[in-house]
C-alpha cells in the first residue's frame, strides 16, 4: 500500500513536470506547480513515515516498464523508507519556500518543469530494486538537477558549474554501473534480491564497495570528488540548492549504504579503514574550504562536504564494528550516521532558504556586502540563527546529538582487534573534533558578518523581510531542529528498524527512559538529556533576567558605540568575512591552501591606497584535477591529427588494425 502510494506520488510529480511545460510562463504556474508538489510530497512523506514507524515488512512491486523482458522492480524497506522521509520532508519544505521565493524567479519556465521531475527522480532512486531502474533513476536525478543548475545560464560561472557537474555526474554513474556489473556477475543477476542472494566473494565485494564509494561518493561530495559541488549547488535557485545540498547528497549516501551494507556481502575490516580515512579528511577539508569563502551560498555548499564527512565517519565505524561482529556498537554508529543524515537535511535546507531570502531581499550573495540584516529581517535572522547553532553542534539543538552519538561510537572502538583501526580511529576522532570546532568558527563568521554589525551596502541597508511562505518553511525546519534536539529519543527509536535490517541489531529503546534522556549503551557509561539541558538554560537565564530587572536596574540608554573611544562611522571599518577568517587562514591555511598574504603600504606622501592581496591555492584541484585535465587535453590534441588524414592513410590504418586484430585472434586461440 505505502509503496504504491509512493510510486503514484512519483508518477504524479513526473506528470506535473510535463504539465508545467505546457503552462509555461503564466503567472499562476508557479503557485500551481509548487503547491501541487508540496501536497504530493506530503502524501508521500506520510506513506514513508507509516512504513518506517510501522516497522512493516518490505513491500515489493514489479511494473512492466523499461526494458521489455526485464520489467522495473520496486521495493520499500526500512532503509528506503527512512531516506524517503528525508527526501519528502525536504521536498515539502522546499516547495513551501518556493511558493514565495519562486515569485521572484526571472525564468520560471526553465525551473518549473524540472523541479517536480527532480523530486520524482530522487524518490525513484530510493524505491528502485534492480540495478537498471536504480541507474536510470540516478541519471534522471542528475540530469534534472543539472537542468536546474543551468536555469540561469547567462551567469558566466554557471555554465562552467554545469559542465563540471555533468562530467563528474557521468563519471560517478560510470563507477556505479561498473559496481553493479560486478555484483550482477556473468549471469546478469540485475535485481537487488538476486545480488543479495548471490553472496559475492570478498575481493569482488571489496571492488564493488570501492566503486560505490567513488560513484555515490562523487554525488555526495567526498574529498577529493567534491569539486563540482561548491560550483553547482549555489548556481541553482535557492530552494533547489537546498534540495541538492540537503537532500540529493543524502540520496547518494543511500546509494553507498545500499551497496556497502546490503549488497556487497559481509564487510572486511579494511573497508572501514578506507571509509573512515576519507570521512575524516572530507570533514576537515570541507570546513576549511568553507572558512575561506565569503560567498554565502558557496560557503554553505562547502559546508555540506564537511557534514558528508561526518556521516561517512559514522558509516565507517559501523562497517568496522560489523566486520568484527560487534553488532550493538555497529548499530550505534549506524544510528549516529543516519541521525546526522536527518539532522543535516533539516539545518542545511534551513540555511539555504535563509541564504535565498537574503538573496531576494538584497540581491547579494557576497557576505562582504551584507551586514546588519537582523534589524531589517528580524524573523529570518532568528530562524537562521537556530540553523547556525544547530549546524555548529551546540546543545541543546539536534546537530549536537548526532555528533555526540558518533563520539560515543568512537569510544567503543578500542575493543576492535585490528591494529590499523586502533591507530586510525583516534586520529579520525581528533579530525571530527577539529571539524566540529571549526564549524562553530565558520558559522560565527556567517551569522556575524551577514546578519550582525552594520550594513556594508545600500542593498543591505534597505532590505525588507521576506514573504510569509518562505518564513513558514524556515520556521517549520527550525522547529524540527529544536524538537530533534530536545527529544532525540523519538528519532533514535524511529531508526531502529533500519539498523535491524542492515546490521541485525538496534540501539536500546530510548523513549520511556528516565526523564526522556538518551542512553546509548548503559546509564553508567553515558547519557544526555537535551530536554533537561534546554529547561535548565531557559530557567536559569530567565531567573537571572527577572532577578536583575527586579532588584538591581533595568534602565537603558542608547549611545554611539564605544569602540575604545575611537568609533568610526564608516561600516568599512568593521571586521569582514575575510578578516574574521584571517587567524584561521594563518594557522591552517598556510599548510592546506598555501595561503600567502602580500601587503603593500605606500610610502608617506604617496596617495595610493594600501593593498592586501591574499592568495589561496586549492591543493586538490592543483594536484589531482589539473594533471588530469592537462592529460586529457594533451591526448585530444594528439588524436585530433587523425581527423585530417588523406584517404590512403585512412585505408592503411584500417588495414593495419585488421592485421593486428587477426594476429591477436591467432595468438589467443
Amino acid at each position, binding site marked *: 500500500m505505502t509503496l504504491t502510494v509512493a510510486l503514484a506520488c512519483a508518477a504524479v510529480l513526473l506528470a506535473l513536470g510535463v504539465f508545467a511545460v505546457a503552462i509555461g510562463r503564466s503567472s499562476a504556474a508557479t503557485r500551481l506547480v509548487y503547491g501541487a508538489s508540496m501536497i504530493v510530497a506530503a502524501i508521500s512523506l506520510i506513506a514513508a513515515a507509516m512504513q518506517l514507524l510501522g516497522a512493516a515488512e518490505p513491500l515489493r512491486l514489479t511494473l512492466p516498464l523499461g526494458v521489455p523482458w526485464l520489467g522495473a522492480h520496486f521495493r520499500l524497506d526500512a532503509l528506503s523508507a527512512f531516506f524517503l522521509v528525508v527526501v519528502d520532508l525536504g521536498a515539502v519544505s522546499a516547495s513551501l519556500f518556493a511558493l514565495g521565493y519562486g515569485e521572484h524567479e526571472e525564468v520560471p519556465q526553465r525551473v518549473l518543469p524540472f523541479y517536480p521531475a527532480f523530486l520524482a527522480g530522487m524518490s525513484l532512486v530510493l524505491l528502485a530494486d534492480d540495478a537498471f531502474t536504480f541507474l536510470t533513476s540516478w541519471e534522471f536525478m542528475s540530469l534534472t538537477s543539472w537542468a536546474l543548475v543551468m536555469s540561469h545560464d547567462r551567469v558566466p560561472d554557471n555554465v562552467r558549474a554545469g559542465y563540471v557537474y555533468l562530467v563528474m555526474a557521468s563519471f560517478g554513474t560510470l563507477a556505479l554501473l561498473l559496481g553493479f556489473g560486478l555484483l550482477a556477475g556473468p549471469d546478469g543477476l540485475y535485481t537487488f534480491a538476486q545480488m543479495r542472494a548471490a553472496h559475492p566473494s570478498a575481493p569482488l565485494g571489496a571492488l564493488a564497495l570501492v566503486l560505490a564509494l567513488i560513484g555515490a561518493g562523487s554525488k555526495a561530495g567526498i574529498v577529493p570528488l567534491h569539486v563540482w559541488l561548491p560550483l553547482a549547488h549555489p548556481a541553482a535557485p535557492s530552494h533547489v540548492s537546498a534540495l541538492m545540498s540537503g537532500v540529493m547528497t543524502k540520496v547518494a549516501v543511500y546509494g553507498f549504504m545500499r551497496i556497502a551494507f546490503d549488497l556487497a556481502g559481509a564487510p572486511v575490516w579494511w573497508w572501514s579503514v578506507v571509509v573512515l580515512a576519507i570521512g575524516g579528511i572530507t570533514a576537515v577539508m570541507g570546513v576549511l574550504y568553507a572558512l575561506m569563502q565569503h560567498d554565502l551560498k558557496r560557503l554553505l555548499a562547502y559546508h555540506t562536504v564537511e557534514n558528508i564527512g561526518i556521516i561517512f565517519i559514522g558509516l565507517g565505524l559501523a562497517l568496522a564494528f560489523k566486520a568484527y561482529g560487534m553488532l550493538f556498537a555497529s548499530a550505534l554508529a549506524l544510528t549516529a550516521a543516519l541521525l546526522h543524515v536527518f539532522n543535516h537535511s533539516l539545518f542545511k535546507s534551513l540555511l539555504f532558504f535563509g541564504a535565498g531570502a537574503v538573496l531576494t531581499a538584497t540581491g547579494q550573495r557576497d557576505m562582504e556586502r551584507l551586514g546588519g540584516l537582523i534589524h531589517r529581517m528580524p524573523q529570518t535572522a532568528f530562524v537562521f540563527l537556530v540553523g547556525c547553532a544547530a549546524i555548529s553542534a551546540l546543545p541543546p539543538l539536534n546537530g549536537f546529538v548526532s555528533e555526540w552519538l558518533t563520539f560515543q561510537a568512537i569510544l567503543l572502538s578500542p575493543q576492535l582487534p585490528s591494529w590499523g583501526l586502533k591507530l586510525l580511529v583516534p586520529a579520525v576522532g581528533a579530525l571530527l573534533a577539529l571539524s566540529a570546532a571549526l564549524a562553530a568558527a565558520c558559522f560565527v563568521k556567517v551569522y556575524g558578518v551577514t546578519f*550582525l*554589525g552594520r550594513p556594508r551596502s545600500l542593498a543591505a541597508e534597505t532590505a525588507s523581510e521576506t514573504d510569509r511562505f518562505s518564513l513558514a518553511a524556515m520556521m517549520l525546519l527550525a522547529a524540527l531542529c529544536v524538537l530533534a534536539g530536545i527529544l532525540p529519543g523519538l528519532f533514535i527509536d524511529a531508526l531502529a528498524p533500519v539498523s535491524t535490517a542492515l546490521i541485525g541489531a538496534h540501539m536500546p529503546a530510548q523513549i520511556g527512559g528516565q526523564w526522556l534522556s538518551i542512553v546509548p549503551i548503559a546509564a553508567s557509561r553515558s547519557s544526555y538529556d537535551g530536554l533537561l539541558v534546554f529547561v*535548565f538554560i531557559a530557567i536559569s537565564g530567565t531567573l537571572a533576567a527577572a532577578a536583575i530587572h527586579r532588584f538591581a536596574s533595568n534602565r537603558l540608554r542608547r549611545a554611539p558605540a564605544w*569602540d575604545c573611544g575611537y568609533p568610526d562611522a564608516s561600516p568599512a571599518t568593521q571586521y569582514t568575512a575575510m578578516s*574574521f577568517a584571517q587567524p584561521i587562514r594563518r594557522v591552517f591555511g598556510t599548510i592546506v591552501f598555501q595561503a600567502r598574504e602580500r601587503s603593500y603600504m605606500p610610502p608617506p606622501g604617496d596617495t595610493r591606497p594600501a593593498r592586501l592581496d591574499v592568495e589561496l591555492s586549492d591543493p586538490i584541484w592543483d594536484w589531482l584535477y589539473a594533471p588530469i585535465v592537462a592529460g586529457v587535453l594533451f591526448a585530444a590534441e594528439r588524436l585530433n591529427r587523425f581527423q585530417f588524414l588523406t584517404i590512403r592513410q585512412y585505408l592503411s590504418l584500417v588495414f593495419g588494425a585488421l592485421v593486428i586484430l587477426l594476429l591477436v585472434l591467432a595468438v589467443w586461440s
Partner: protein
Amino acid sequence: MVLIRDFAIQGAQMLLVLTLAPLLTGFVRKVKARLLRRQGPPLVQPYLDLFRLMRKEVVLADSASWLFRVIPYLVFAATWVAASLVPTFRTGLLFSWSADLIAIIALLGSARFFLALAGLDVGTSFGGIGSSREMMIASLAEPAMIMIVFTLALIAGSTQLSTVAEFMASPQVGLRVSLGLALIGLVMVAIAENGRVPVDNPATHLELTMVHEAMVLEYSGRHLALIELASSLKLILCVSLLACLFAPWGIEAAGAAAATLVVGITAYVGKLAVGGFLLGLFETSIAKMRVFRVPEFLGAALMLGLLATLLRFVSGSF
C-alpha cells in the same frame, strides 16, 4: 523525601559555585598582587564590582540588536548549567546524568559561540578582532579538550563525569602515562579557555593583543556584570574539573550521609584555594605570548591529548 534531599543538594551545588566563583577570581588577583609585592584589592572586590555594575544603567550602542541584549543571559545560563554539572563536593548529584563531559564542553562551546556573535553585533573593529581570535583559539582548544575527554573516558569506561570522578577516587586507577599527558593537556586547555596568561591577559585593556576583553568591550552595566560572572564561573568550573579528576580526595560518594557534607565542602574549598594559588603563581612567573604563538601552545595540548588517546587504544595498561 529522598528526592527533596537530592534536589536540595543539587541546588546547594548550584548556589555554591555561583557564590564562590567571584571569590576565586578575587583570590587569584590577591595572590598575584601579593607576589608582585602589591597590597591588591580586597578579596570581596569582585562581588562589589558585580553589585555596582548591576545597579548601573546599560549604555547600549546605537547599532546593537536584540541579540546583543539576550546574549549575556544566554552565556551566563549556559556557563552556570555547565558549572553546576561538574562534581564539586559530592558525586552522583540528582541531575549529574543529564549531560556528560562531552556535553559540558559543548555547553561551554555554546556560550563562546554566542559571545563571539555579540562581539560582531555592534560592528566595531575591536569586537571583530576579539571574536575572530577567540574562535581561532577555540578551534584548537576544543578538539584538545575532546581528546583529553576520550582518554579519561577510556580509562574510566564512561563519559559520565560523576562516574569518572568516582573511578578516579578509587584505588584501581593507579599511575598511568596517559593520565599524566591528559593532566598537562587539560591544564593548558584550561588556561586558554579562561583567557589567562600566557594566552590572554584578563587584566589588560586597550591592547591589540587582548582577546576576551576586546570581544565584550561594548558591554556595560548589568550585561557586563553577567558576562564577568560567567567568566568567573568558567574559571571555577575548570578548577573544579581538574580537582575532581586529578585530586579527588575528600569528594563524597553519591549515598554519603548529610553530616559529611561539611567535610566535602571544606575539602572542595581547600582545593579551590590551592588551585587559585597555583594559577596566580604560574601567571606571575610567565610572560604573555604573541597571539600567533598560541596555536603552537594549543597544538601541543592537542598532540598530548591525541597521544594519550592513542596509548589507551594501543593498550589498556598505559
